[in-house]
């Protein structure tokens, strides 16, 4: 059973990005890259999503929202930090308002660097995330099976 790798639904959140990476994320949906080939849907709803795609760094305004969105997601779930700002804060790292990369708030599973990230890299990152997602699912299933026994 590995249906989760065939149907990863995404929620995309724009932290404090310059919108460069966001445009590339959306480019993934276009006919050229068409990520729906992999069963990927951009749901826009954390309760439906399996993959949390974040662009841009974390600042004091959005930290609560990133945390809340992550908590709203149902296990198994993975986080993909898209772009250099999301992985480490990028050029904004030293800014007064930036706390750093996404991993300062929530655990990140895949880092996709780049400024801006190329769609190919995003797709590659997501596909890597699928492997982690499947492992988490297996672990969850084992835990639940164990709990039942």
């Amino acid at each position, binding site marked *: 059973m590995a249906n989760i790798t*065939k149907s990863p639904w995404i929620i995309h959140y724009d932290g404090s990005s310059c919108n460069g990476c966001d445009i590339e994320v959306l480019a993934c949906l276009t006919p050229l890259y068409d990520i*729906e080939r992999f069963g990927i849907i951009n749901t*826009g*709803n954390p*309760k439906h999503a*399996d993959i949390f795609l974040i662009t841009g760094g974390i600042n004091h305004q959005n930290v609560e929202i990133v945390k809340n969105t992550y908590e709203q997601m149902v296990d*198994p779930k993975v986080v993909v930090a898209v772009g250099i700002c999301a992985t480490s804060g990028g050029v904004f790292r030293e800014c007064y308002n930036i706390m750093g990369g996404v991993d300062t708030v929530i655990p990140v599973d895949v880092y996709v660097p780049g400024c801006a990230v190329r769609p190919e890299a995003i797709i590659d990152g997501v596909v890597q995330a699928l492997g982690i997602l499947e492992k988490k699912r297996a672990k969850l299933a084992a835990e639940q099976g164990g709990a039942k026994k």
Partner: protein
Amino acid sequence: MINPFIGAILFVIFAPVLGGLVAGIDRKVTAHMQGRVGPPILQPFYDIFKLFEKESAVVRPEINFYIFCYLVFLVITGAIFFAGEDILLVIFALTLAHVFIVIAAYASSSPYAHVGAERELLMMMAVEPMLILAAAGMYVATGSFFVGEIIDFQLGGGGLLVTWIPLLFIGVVYILTIKLRKSPFDISTSHHAHQELVKGLTTEFSGPTLGMYEIAHLYELVFLLGFVWLFFAGSPLLGIVVVAVVYFLEILIDNTNTRAKWQFALRSAWLAALVLGVINLVALVLGIIQPGTLGVL
């Protein structure tokens, strides 16, 4: 006429399979219309199986119960229909099922789900008259409310149902867009990420809860296609072709229209029911319409 129980059992077992395939083809065709490759045909099945692999987390436990009721009553709706029973009863069971999904959305107390619930309710109100008038038209034309007898009437030389109630058929196709929650009437929830309401009705459903909802949706899809088929049941193969054409039309409309406001949805659906329904029914009662009047078949 085949044994009613066989029809019902076949529906209960195979409707999700058929529905899933239709939904998969839908997504493939949509993708091609947009110049994309699109997901595999079996994608809807992957989606549903995935949802059941996920953790069960809820806003309130009762929601699962309401959605389970939704699923059960949609299955019952379709089963009654395919068993050849009373069409009015089918419509009422369908309404009951939808009341449960609306209640589920209300019970989640979420702002997005709440507005989704209101809109879904509004859409139910928009389609109800057309469905009842269509049933009335079927009765006037064939002398029976029973789906089985309506089919027998057509097979027994009564002419295709659509030749008696062509305008009502058009009306049903019109509200089919609302019932399938396709653009421009996908205002309560939608498959696409262009919702100002997040996911409207389904916002708070996740994992297996959403899985039940999706399965119910497949049952509903097959039932609705069966309803369209009924208009051509006198010639079963032609009926299937028409169903395919109508569904293709729905996909085309879905892809070429922006979302409408609820005002338009309600007004247009009621206007369609009023104009198409009344003209057709009055013509039928007065005997103006006979099969063959339109030169069809």
